[in-house]
């Protein structure tokens, strides 16, 4: 202990700075120089140069390691139990490695001697420890780090195997410690480093088992029965619903390369990690030293495992990160965003070229699948062609046409009953936002809507793209929305939509 402290005091060199310009890093590819020799002797007598690891909170990642020799790396990790935001209006007492969920990202190099100091804050209610999957030894370190509140445990290990590894608390009851946020990632860089990329991000999935249902407000407590049954109320990326949405989205520019260190803390569910609208160029296995597969759509990441994924971003737009077990993305929170800025390349992706009427099978399927409503018994004839000049169709006709548009596009987010999804997609039924300003309402399908809006007292921060509707379809669907589910907010005419084209967004 004492000699370790002396060593620590003797050196103050800090690991490389934060990510950003990773292209500058010199990396010799991912070829291995061979297995790390098994060390012997005592860690406290190590003569390696001492460094302090720079630890960063998600989605940040400490920069690549430039040195080409092993070091004695000191990792100071503090456990804190903190009440933190889980979703809008929902708080939860998270147990954290470093103050946030997931835990701070640790980056070391193959062959390093890592001295891990686990500090358990005096205000903690419980003892905690740490099991790093990068460690070979009892409990992955957990056997040496059970730490009472107000104490520090220290142990060291040699990072023998390169790779991206999960670390987590291994104190009984383990599922509760993990579900409460005690997981993170440690990257053991291969000796040759990883190929340079433009952006590195840290995304980690986890489950929260609250006593209340998704969206129930207030401070939620842990529900052991739900944990035992593996029925989380929340499945989240980076510790809260919306942590990677809107202003918090990951960013890149057209033509850049993005690397995501994706971990799954679990404790129970396997993630089907998918980036909507991208194809993952390369997936590295846990080991990180070898490309496991190319051109991958969905990466299966077990609880307690991780994957390194890389892709170029040739096209601009918002790309949505999900667990492709989709009930977790739509309704439990497993949803994030990557915004790629730059010119659109219509050769790669044209955008909508046209949208024409189609009266065939698809329309019948939609009608057959939709819930029968009282008015559907006497369904009015729907005029499919453009209205004749000077002819205003009846409200009945416009409602039916609007309903069809709604069931083609809008229902996926705002739901067939117009109630939206709590904290993700705002409701239209009974929406004060919709009622307050008709002109604004018209501009939303026309221009899209990005950023925070307050609907019925709740904040939503999401992205709705412009809708590829004709002016008549917009008039119809707004009329439908403004006169359904108890709404009585007036009607919208085609002329009003045309006028809205000229107004500011």
């Amino acid at each position: 202990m004492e000699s370790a402290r002396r060593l620590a005091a003797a050196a103050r060199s800090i690991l490389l700075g934060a990510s950003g310009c990773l292209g500058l890093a010199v990396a010799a590819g991912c070829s291995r120089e061979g297995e790390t020799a098994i060390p012997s002797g005592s860690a406290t007598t190590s003569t390696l140069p001492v460094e302090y690891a720079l630890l960063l909170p998600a989605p940040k990642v400490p920069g690549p390691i430039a040195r080409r020799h092993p070091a004695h790396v000191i990792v100071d990790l503090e456990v804190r139990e903190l009440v933190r935001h889980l979703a809008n209006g929902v708080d939860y007492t998270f147990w954290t490695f470093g103050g946030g969920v997931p835990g701070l990202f640790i980056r070391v190099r193959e062959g390093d001697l890592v001295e891990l100091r686990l500090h358990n804050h005096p205000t903690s209610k419980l003892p905690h420890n740490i099991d790093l999957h990068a460690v070979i030894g009892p409990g992955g370190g957990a056997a040496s780090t059970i730490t009472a509140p107000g104490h520090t445990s220290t142990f060291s290990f040699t990072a023998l195997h390169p790779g991206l590894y999960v670390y987590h608390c291994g104190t009984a009851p383990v599922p509760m410690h993990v579900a409460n946020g005690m997981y993170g990632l440690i990257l053991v860089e291969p000796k040759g480093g990883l190929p340079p990329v433009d952006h590195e991000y840290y995304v980690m999935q986890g489950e929260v088992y609250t006593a209340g249902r998704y969206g129930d407000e207030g401070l939620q407590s842990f529900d052991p029965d739900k944990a035992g049954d593996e029925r989380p109320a929340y499945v989240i990326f980076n510790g809260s619903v919306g942590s990677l949405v809107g202003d918090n989205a990951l960013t890149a520019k057209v033509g850049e390369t993005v690397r995501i260190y994706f971990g799954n803390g679990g404790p129970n569910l396997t993630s089907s990690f998918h980036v909507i609208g991208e194809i993952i160029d390369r997936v590295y296995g846990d080991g990180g030293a070898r490309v496991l597969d190319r051109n991958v759509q969905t990466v299966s990441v077990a609880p307690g495992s991780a994957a390194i994924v890389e892709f170029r971003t040739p096209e601009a737009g918002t790309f949505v990160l999900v667990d492709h077990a989709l009930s977790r993305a739509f309704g439990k929170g497993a949803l994030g965003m990557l915004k790629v800025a730059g010119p659109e390349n219509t050769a790669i992706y044209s955008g909508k070229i046209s949208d024409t009427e189609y009266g065939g099978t698809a329309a019948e399927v939609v009608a057959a699948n939709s819930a029968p409503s009282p008015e559907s018994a006497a369904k009015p004839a729907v005029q499919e062609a453009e209205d004749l000049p000077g002819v205003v169709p009846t409200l009945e006709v416009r409602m039916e046409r609007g309903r069809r548009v709604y069931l083609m596009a809008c229902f996926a987010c705002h739901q067939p009953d117009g109630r939206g999804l709590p904290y993700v997609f705002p409701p239209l039924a009974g929406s004060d936002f919709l009622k307050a300003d008709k002109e604004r309402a018209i501009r939303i399908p026309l221009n899209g809507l990005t950023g925070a809006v307050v609907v019925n007292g709740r904040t939503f921060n999401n992205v709705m793209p412009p809708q590829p509707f004709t002016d008549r379809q917009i008039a119809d669907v707004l009329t439908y929305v403004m006169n359904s589910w108890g709404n009585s907010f007036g009607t919208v005419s085609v002329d009003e939509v045309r006028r809205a084209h000229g107004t500011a967004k």
Partner: protein
Amino acid sequence: MTRHLTAALVLGACLAGPAAAGQPPAGMALVPEGDYAPLFRAKDDPATVRVPAFYIDVRQVTNADFLGFVRANPNWRRSQVSPLFAESGYLGDWSGDLELGPRAPSDSPVVLVSWFAARAYARWRGLRLPSTAEWERAASAGFTSANGAADPAYREAILAWLSVPTPPVLPAAGSGRPDVYGVRDLTDLVWEWVDDFNAMMPGGDSADNSGLDRDLVCGAGGANARDFTDYPAFMRVAFRSSLGAAYVVPNLGFRCAKSL
């Protein structure tokens, strides 16, 4: 306390009835003889252990109680205690050797005391610390039933306590709802020392004396546990296993026990 014992014996002798023998000393409650089912046990151990009836303090030892002890025993004062017997944070929330101060209200449970100090206090009062079996037996009772597991309100109280961090100033000891034996705050105010806190080692087979540690640090530990849904019991085992006898912890206090 010897006086109490004598009084109880005399009283019992006078009335010559078994009920009178169960009259607890002042501030204590009787936990009747019964079974304790350890969370972990070796393969050949019995599923339950018989625990004879005992008395236990109704509430934790408070700062005021402990102040009386250090007044009478200068070697247990903050400035004089041996570092062998208590870490440097011993009574660190007090303002001074003999001053409680704003962070340690007189009626709040005393915390930041080592096992050595708790034991010395108990001995000074003519009492002892409860064993793990006794403590767990007392804590197995609920508000309305001797079987707390069948008392949802009792389990919810524990989980609610766990869901909030330790407050900077602890509330008063003895203010919680009493369980069926009349004991208060066992599971929702602070953790408590037990006499054999470090005894959670597998019995007999010393060749495998790391076995239990391993059980505690991996999910497979549930495999030989009595009841893997009893999360609070796991936490208490984990908590005790994190301690050393000289440790002082901001949310760890104690109460005393006494044999009949």
